[in-house]
């Protein structure tokens, strides 16, 4: 397939490929959940093609580089399609641990810049997944133009999110026409992927904003210990897990029957950069912190008792005639039972972007959720959180974006192909 030195070849990490490939042949439905476990920066690989895009139910990797792109004004529909084809080829190579281009980082002419930037030489695939999404602006831009003849294919639910109370969004790092979510167990591999995809895109797209995440805050399997966010609490305990087929169909995947056919088997990605007021939070008494969250800080058990995975009992009375899980506790306010059973698949990451001018950590949670319909599965919960959640006092939402994530890519197809045919 490739003539240059493959990163995989160098490291001898190819064994896992066989597993992935076999799974794919056996049935695409299982394609991106069945490979080697992630977690240790190992040489595991996830198949790029499958029924659904990889990087959604896939075991959450340790690191994130998320990038949003805008299509430049001069680009045509043909340019856009050409880019998606080029990205598909490069992404498939990158997820195998191969260089972005066919020649390689050091195999080409000394007179030309290499077609791979080289910082991943010697690194394995590191469970890299690349997940692509389309923003509302691709269908109709802010000036109302239908630049690519796609306006009538826009799914009804793909709209800029409404302004939520206390939103303090920075417009230059919100929104975007396209997005790529790169997750890997090695940060250099994730950054390498975004860097090379951006390079391939120049002339058709420009990077609008990007975000690094360094510690996953959710898992999609029950065997991994639930990670902690920067408040020090376990996060994502009640996440939709990869093996919950029914719950995934109910809450994550867009059904054939609804809306635009090209999105069937896809999902909606919501990204929100949530700054935490770290220094103020750290000064809150432990008991208060636990009441804000509704769980104990140590085990993650709900305040109504039990262990981490015990269902919270919101009816249980506590001292002073108040419920033991306070009415403004985060776990209560956003709990699926408060929102008609609607659940999200969360895939957020902790981030620290250095410090702000006042010496505080510029840090928080880069929230990523995949849902079947933002109007039922995200907006009501976010609105309720903004209005009633005790944690809001310690949070500041600084960016927001929504993308429609097309279904998985079949052999000889390019990402999102059904949208253009």
């Amino acid at each position, binding site marked *: 397939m490739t003539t240059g030195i493959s990163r995989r070849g160098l490291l001898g990490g190819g064994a896992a490929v066989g597993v992935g490939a076999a799974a794919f042949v056996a049935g695409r439905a299982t394609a991106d959940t069945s490979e080697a476990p992630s977690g240790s920066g190992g040489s595991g690989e996830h198949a790029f093609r499958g029924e659904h895009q990889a990087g959604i139910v896939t075991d959450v990797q340790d690191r994130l580089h998320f990038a949003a792109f805008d299509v430049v004004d001069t680009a045509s529909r043909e340019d856009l399609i050409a880019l998606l084809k080029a990205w598909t080829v490069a992404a498939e190579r990158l997820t195998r641990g191969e260089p972005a281009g066919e020649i390689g980082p050091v195999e080409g002419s000394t007179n030309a810049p290499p077609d791979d930037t080289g910082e991943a030489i010697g690194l394995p695939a590191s469970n890299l997944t690349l997940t692509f999404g389309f923003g509302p602006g691709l269908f109709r831009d802010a000036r109302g133009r239908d630049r690519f003849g796609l306006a009538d294919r826009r799914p009804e639910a793909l709209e800029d999110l*409404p*302004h*939520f*109370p*206390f*939103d*303090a969004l920075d417009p230059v790092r919100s929104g975007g026409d396209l997005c790529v979510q790169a997750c890997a167990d090695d940060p250099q591999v994730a950054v390498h992927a975004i860097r090379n995809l951006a390079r391939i895109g120049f002339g058709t797209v420009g990077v609008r904003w990007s975000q690094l995440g360094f510690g996953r805050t959710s898992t999609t399997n029950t065997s991994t210990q639930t990670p902690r966010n920067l408040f020090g609490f376990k996060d994502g305990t009640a996440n939709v897990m990869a093996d919950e087929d029914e719950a995934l169909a109910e809450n994550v995947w867009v059904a054939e029957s609804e809306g635009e056919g090209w999105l069937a088997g896809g999902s909606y990605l919501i990204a929100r950069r949530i700054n935490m*007021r770290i*220094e*103020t939070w*750290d*000064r*809150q*008494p*432990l*008991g208060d912190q636990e009441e804000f969250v509704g769980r*104990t800080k140590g085990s993650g*058990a*709900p*305040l*109504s*008792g*039990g*262990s981490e995975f*015990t269902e919270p009992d919101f009816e*249980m*009375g*506590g*001292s*002073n005639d*108040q419920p*033991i899980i306070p009415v*403004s506790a985060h776990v209560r306010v956003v709990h699926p039972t408060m929102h008609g059973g609607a659940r999200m698949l969360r895939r957020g990451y902790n981030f620290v972007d250095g410090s702000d*001018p*006042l*010496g*505080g950590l510029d840090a928080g949670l880069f929230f990523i959720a995949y849902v079947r319909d933002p109007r039922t599965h995200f907006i009501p919960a976010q*609105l309720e959180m*903004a*209005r*009633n*959640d*005790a944690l*809001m*006092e310690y949070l500041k939402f600084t960016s927001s974006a929504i993308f429609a994530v097309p279904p998985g890519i079949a052999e000889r197809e390019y990402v999102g192909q059904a949208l253009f045919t």
Partner: protein
Amino acid sequence: MKRTTSLCLLLSLPVLAACGTESTKQPTGGDEAAARTVAVDSGDDACDVSTAEAPAGTLTFNVKNSGSDVTEFYLLAEDGLQIIAEIENIGPQSTKTLTVSAPEGSYLTACKPGMTGDGIRADFTVTESDEEVVVSADDQELIETAQANYAAYVEDQSAQLLEQTTEFVRLYLAGDDDAARALYPVARTHWERIETVAESFGDLDPKMDAREADLAEGEKWTGWHLIEKDLWPARAENYTPLTSAERATFANDLLANTQVLDDRIQELTYTIDQIANGSRGLLEEVANGKVTGEEEFWSRTDLWDFQANVDGAKVAFGGVKPILDSKDPELSAQLTERFDALQVLLDEQRVGEGFKYYDELTPEEIKALADAVNALSEPLSNLTAAVLG
């Protein structure tokens, strides 16, 4: 403005204010520490206490709820009435830790599964030891004084807020915008000094102190900051000034809400931990909105609010200081010193009766203020535990 409704301030707790706390204070090491650590197992019908006696000093009760109901645990005085320390809301199958400084004497322990009745009681003896436990007989008196003084302070500030808001509204409706602009930060000083109390009324706070972005789409904006924008429209894009009729609507609404606030404040009482938490809370307001210049986006009068928050924090601290002086004199001295250091920096920014506008501050000056806020806020976060401990 506060983001979410908190009614905790309004609950009258049926316990003595000087209750124990889930303290962070660690007992000293070795055998002594082991002797002062007591395991309690609170079941549905039993209250197993691992030892019936412990040496005087800082005692740690690790209370495990092995029952099926929420439980509470109490350390009571010999009379079985006075609560020395308590811990509430221990959910089934959870454990909480109660730390209490106890002098030699006879006590009772009590588990209260289901949170009703007298609880399952047992005798508990604290024996003489080398560790000195400071107990001031005057504590209760100091507490009552602090509570009365703080209630009087809040009532006084609220009365002044009402008076100044009345005048502000008069000027604004008369179209005397220069005078209204001059009075705006002065009147708000009285709000900011008692902000943690004022914003505890979750229905009034958003009507009076919301910024535009605090609202959801379609919600109606009212209150101080709407009028602020109308008086200082310079930073607004394509701003349409309010008509006289609109001015009247919004100004009268603000005044009416200020009156409601004042009425409600007359009914409030404050526990000692609420006063101490209020001090910390006001410094958090400084850190989150004032030192960053976000509170008064249109008028840039953030330093007035800054000073007012600090004033209120200082009064709350001063109220509990006599109690703190006996319990943790080092913390008391440190807090006094850091309040002073912050005040020195604020005084440097004074201009006449007021302050520089936020956009007249250099980044270095803002950073120095932020550092001083952090320097004060960090030890201040230990105030409540120290006062209760």
